[in-house]
């Protein structure tokens, strides 16, 4: 039995050695936030502030990585396996696509946080060159011959879809029919000579490459552009009506369960609804959903009539099927190079 004793002794020593060296404490948690194009600066500040709070609360260091691109493209990446812990995308439809095609997110995701899981809203505005030489004030001005409009591709960009729907909704309300709205939007896109894949790309095309007379931009992107590039170069034009953009957020259930990061990921998104999170949003020109904080920052958010997607298009599923699916209205309207 000596051999047995020797074996047990060896095993005991191994056990002690492995127990001591093989299981590092989880002092750090890593999150990946897969977001749409113009939210880089917003989440840089959110990550920093949330990280400090989480450290205070739990003692855990949270390291949030960011990934940005066209919203639909980002959704596709998550469907294809990009292991996002949270998605903060431009459209509810893109999150629904992840739910449907990968089942990585629970179908009731929109009900898990307030305002259909939308911590901030935004809208689509016009950015024109200083002095507004083309006198662009309303959506009608965008279809005038010779006006060059810059906006990204609705096939890949969430912001572009909001811009397209904003044009359609205002035209339909003014002209009275979907057919006339279609003609209007067709004329508008005839004035769009290039389609970048994302909102940030279009901003660069307009601002740095000096292409176009007007940029259709997220309100926050427009404000940031003017702030960064100088008020002497661009003006922001608020049309009388636009779209109520509701970019939603959610945890990616399967991934957080796999990574054991659910607690931190949920806290990260809830932080966006706190007063501090809402103030950060306002600083980055996203309209807070907290009424008090919106009112406090009202000066930077002019009032205009905002149509919701549900109200005009019957929800994102319907809007996508009718306008953005392959062969749908956008494909009929937009002829590259024409």
């Amino acid at each position: 039995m000596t051999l047995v004793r020797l074996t047990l002794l060896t095993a005991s020593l191994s056990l002690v050695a492995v127990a001591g060296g093989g299981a590092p404490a989880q002092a750090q948690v890593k999150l990946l936030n897969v977001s749409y194009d113009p939210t880089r600066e917003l989440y840089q500040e959110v990550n920093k502030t949330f990280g400090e709070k989480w450290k205070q609360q739990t003692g855990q260091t949270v390291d949030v990585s960011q990934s940005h691109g066209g919203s639909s493209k980002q959704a596709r990446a998550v469907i294809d396996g990009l292991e996002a812990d949270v998605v903060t995308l431009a459209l509810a439809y893109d999150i629904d696509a992840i739910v449907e095609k990968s089942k990585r997110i629970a179908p009731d995701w929109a009900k898990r946080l307030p305002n259909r899981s939308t911590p901030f809203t935004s809208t689509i505005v016009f950015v024109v060159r200083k002095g507004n030489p083309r006198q662009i004030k309303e959506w009608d001005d965008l279809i005038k011959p010779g006006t060059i409009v810059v906006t990204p591709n609705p096939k890949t960009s969430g912001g572009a879809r909001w811009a397209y729907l904003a044009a359609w909704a205002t035209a339909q309300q003014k002209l009275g029919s979907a057919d006339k709205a279609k003609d209007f939007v067709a004329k508008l896109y005839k004035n769009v000579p290039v389609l970048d894949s994302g909102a940030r790309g279009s901003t660069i095309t307009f601002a740095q490459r000096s292409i176009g007379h007007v940029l259709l931009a997220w309100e926050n992107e427009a404000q940031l552009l003017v702030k960064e590039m100088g008020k002497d170069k661009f003006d922001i034009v608020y049309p009388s009506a636009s779209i109520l953009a509701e970019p939603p957020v959610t945890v990616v259930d399967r991934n957080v369960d796999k990574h054991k990061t659910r607690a931190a990921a949920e806290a990260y998104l809830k932080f966006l609804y706190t007063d501090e999170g809402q103030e950060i949003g306002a600083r980055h020109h996203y309209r807070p959903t907290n009424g008090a904080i919106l009112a406090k920052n009202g000066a930077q958010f002019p009032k205009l009539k905002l149509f919701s997607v549900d109200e005009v298009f019957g929800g994102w599923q319907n809007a996508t099927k009718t306008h953005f699916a392959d062969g749908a209205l956008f494909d009929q309207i937009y002829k590259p190079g024409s």
Partner: protein
Amino acid sequence: MSIRLDHLHSAPPPSRGGPTRLAALALGLLVTATAPAAAQTADPNAAAAPAASDLPPAPAPDAVAALDNKIADADQTARIAVRRVEILEEQLAAKAKDAPAASVQADEKGFRLKSGDGAYSLALHALIQADTRWFLDDGALSDRADTFLIRRLRPSIDGTLFGLVDYKVVPDFAGSQTVLFDAYLDAHPAPWLRLRAGKFKTPLGLERLQSDSDLVFIERALTQWLTPTRDVGAALWGDIAGGIVTYNVGIYNGAVDGANPDVDINHAKDFVGRLLIQPFKADGLGDFGSLGLHFAASTGNRGPGTPTAAAATGTPQLPSFRSGGQSTIFSYLTSTTDPAGTVFAHLRQTRINPGLYYYIGPFGLLGEYVQSRQEVQKGNVTATLKHQAAHATASFVIGGKAGYEGATPTNRLDLAKGTLGALEIGVRWNYLKIDDASFGNTADPAAPVFADEKRSVRKATGFAGALTYVPSRTVRFAVNFEQTRFTAGSSVSTTTTDPTTMKTTTTTTVADRKIENALFGRAQVNF
């Protein structure tokens, strides 16, 4: 806080490349064409500044504005042309980046060649198990030899064809023999519909279905002797509801318990089915671990089907059973001279096999029960024998997590990083119970006897412990100890001498086979 508008596009302003030059040329031509008056006013002979009265009239402000507009339009046209080309280039670059390329990979999972789209692949793997067995206090039983051995030596290839059909070939060269273990195609048009054909494991035996490289113990539990090792046939199987339900129904040649046949020896076939429910695969239940509820069953005919001694010649088609230490502990009667003295399989064999596993974090539990009902015949006598076996195996992994696919270290051995891999501790209880009717009936001397209880055990019960060091998924070092107690299976002889006649009489009576204390060791490489 600042916005960095240049981070998406490192491309400089439109002053590079062919398109830009073309655009600039177009712009130049356009400017030239729109300013003929200006060009024509240049007088090459004018050596001195003309008098003011000689100067051509200044263009009207409207003309200047028109010219500015034309230049601006031309400038926009040029910039748009350049940007369009750039976008096309970006799209092409993105497509090229996204376009999958064929790959060669070598890692813990083996060596792989894979086409860009993943539709074709070929992977090389190997499983090498160098074992040792030591029997402690064995009383010099001849079938308990302390030994070193190559337990498994299995190079294998697998892969995919057309993105639709997986294939696998696994021979075994251990023991200086070549035995084919797996050779099959598996077509998978959808996750819920797969067709596997060839030689492979039937879905009987929850532990049997675990890979040889992933077991908690060096040798499988006694339940293994009541299910076939492999069989040849075809099976439909698939995952439903994201793997919550896995079904498997198949038709096979029919294999004897514990056997690994390549050829069929009768016209009858076995039908085998299995249902595996994994409820915690449902969304949101991942934190509860991995639970598998398994139920499998089979039925099929053995033997020639005619209960006559004349027909009952040839292969008996009946198994023998072995202990944890791989000593033979049960076999049916055979006779080389008398066909009526040999026990043959007769008609139907039916197996049922419920079981479950549960893994959560470092903890694992796997248990199952197998019942094998076999009709047998000896001479003109037939009977149905019901053998049973069960086991429960618990494991705990320090520095890793337990799973049906084996222990996985959280961090592989890396001395530079101070990580050591994982240590798996396992305990097991298992038994094998032979139908009492196999041994006749002492109260009824006429009852048929199919096995000799002086050589074959009625029951074996084993307790085992395992300690496995897993520095990485590819390498394992294991030590096991198993004690197995037996009922019957041996005999003792008593010699008595009649004091009157001085005649000696030797009486042989049934005794329990000596307890088996087996110590196992294994070094394993698997990639």
